[in-house]
């Protein structure tokens, strides 16, 4: 079983992002991390691998600084890592990203002579939260996609995944290869052991450039290739704060609040 996990590096989502005076996201003091949903995907892949056999490859499109994130992935279950790195890819939208991922996946398959059975993505990234890449990638690869996965089984070319839905779950089957987008399962990503962490330090990270991708249509990528174009970024206007009640006792505060709510006829 060969598994590909696509990961994105994003700013630590526990820190609020604001704009600089120039109107750009101020990310200077925010640690870049692997998108949380991608870490769930990698953990799910690692558990699947441990239950069976095979290898996990992680693939990331990003700048040089994303290598550290890939190293972290190598310490928690990934066997191989590739960084797709080309300035011309900056500003790609979902379809551009999906296209590059598709080309890179094909290239890795060609180079290694292996075929990916499962392609994992996080259900969305915590920065833009679009949730498009998994679905688009599957369409480009001509495979099925199961989204919001919280559990998966794999047997001889057949995948069965548990999809979380709003009121429960669906069990969905499809033939491999297929794309799975992962949401938070009922477990957390593992901590790397020191041994794995140190081993990961020494593992190579492959670099893939635009020229390396035989199927690439460069015009679909980068800012120029994007269908979706950003006009401007801004911060939402602050809603005007209402009345603050702070009486001496909780009881008095509650009385006052209920009286005001009654006046406003909200119940």
């Amino acid at each position, binding site marked *: 079983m060969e598994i590909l996990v696509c990961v994105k590096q994003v700013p630590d989502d526990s820190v609020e*992002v604001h704009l600089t005076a120039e109107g750009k996201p101020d990310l200077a003091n925010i640690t870049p991390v692997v998108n949380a949903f991608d870490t769930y995907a990698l953990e799910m892949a690692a558990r699947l691998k441990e239950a069976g056999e095979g290898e996990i490859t992680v693939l990331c499109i990003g700048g040089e600084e994303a290598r550290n994130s890939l190293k972290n992935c190598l310490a928690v279950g990934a066997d191989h890592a590739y960084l797709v790195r080309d300035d011309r890819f900056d500003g790609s939208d979902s379809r551009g990203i999906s296209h590059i991922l598709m080309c890179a996946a094909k290239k890795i398959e060609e180079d290694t002579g292996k075929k990916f059975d499962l392609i994992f993505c996080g259900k969305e990234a915590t920065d833009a939260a679009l*949730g498009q890449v998994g679905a688009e990638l599957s*369409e480009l690869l001509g495979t099925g*996609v199961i989204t919001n996965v919280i559990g998966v089984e794999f047997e001889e070319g057949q995948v069965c995944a548990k999809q979380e839905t709003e009121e429960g779950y669906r069990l969905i089957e499809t033939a491999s290869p297929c794309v799975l987008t992962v949401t938070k399962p009922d477990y957390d990503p593992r901590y790397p052991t020191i041994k794995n962490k140190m081993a990961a330090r020494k593992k190579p990270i492959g670099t893939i450039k635009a020229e390396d991708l035989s199927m690439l249509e460069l015009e679909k990528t980068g800012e120029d290739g994007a269908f979706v174009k950003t006009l401007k970024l801004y911060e939402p206007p602050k809603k005007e704060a209402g009345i603050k009640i702070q009486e001496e006792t909780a009881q008095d505060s509650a009385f006052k609040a*209920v009286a005001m709510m009654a006046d406003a006829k909200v119940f």
Partner: protein
Amino acid sequence: MRKYSKEEFAMNMTEYKDIVVYIETADKSPVKVGLEMLSPARKIAENTGGKVRAVLIGDGIRTAAQKAAESGADEVILIEDPQYESFHLDYFTNVMESVIKEEKPVAVLVGGTQDGKDLAPRLAARLKTGCVSDVMDLRTEDGKIVYTCPLYGGTVLQDVVMETSVPQIAVLRSGAFKKTEEAQKGTITEKKVPVTDEKVRLNIKDAVKEISEAVNLEEAEVIVSGGRGMGSKDNFALVKELADLLGGVVGATRPAIEDGWISRVHQVGQSGKIVAPKLYIACGISGATQHVSGIMNSDYIVAINKDEDAPIFEVANIGIVGNAVNVLPVMIEEIRKKKEAE
């Protein structure tokens, strides 16, 4: 479809001017966001001079189609087949692909439900066109449709356009748009889209409703939510008590859910449900952007938090500084009295 230059696209706006709105159904009724989308669709149509066409796919959903026709669609395209009784990503993508190729809309609006969020990008890739997600607002400007979407959990907003591809596909956030109040009655056109197994790769073996309670946060008029400030699962019961008293629905923040106080269907916020009730009561919720951005469209917000500097107070109509665990029992008692007096 192919990519156009800006000039070509501008020209094409005359060719492509209708708006297709995919209205999802749940239990044979249109979902709330489905009907909400008809008002922004109408706004675009006024600008392009086109028609608003709602598409409903399912089985036994004529009443739902009727409802859509009365809610602002010029035409409802009703596609019924037993095979389409419940959502199936592959079949529904095929159906929408076929409808869009025939109708040639300038924009396709899809509601931001879980299934809608899957359908839109799948369709966009199939049609080789652009797609935006989680649209909170939209407007037309110089003949362009400008969409407002959140970034970084909503601390930053971005205005985006899709000028170089048709149709533009947009996933609209539930609760972000108000339903049209007075709408002209539209027509219903039944349409057969034959079931094809082409590109159908998924087999849905089972769909299980695990959560027996009906939690409809999106349509609730009153929501009482609890956060980590409730302190414990026992205390969280106060939130439910107040919600029951007000005939409302219980909401919760991600930490409260992760602590196992209540099931995840109750989650309100960016990664849960975006809500727009008439009354929202936030108990022991500090007001992380994640959460606040999901409640901003509420008409009236009451917040109870012991930290007087909690950001939740910046959006609340009434902010009570105090421990929710102490404040809630008194509020419950007071509201009960007032209700009984009525």
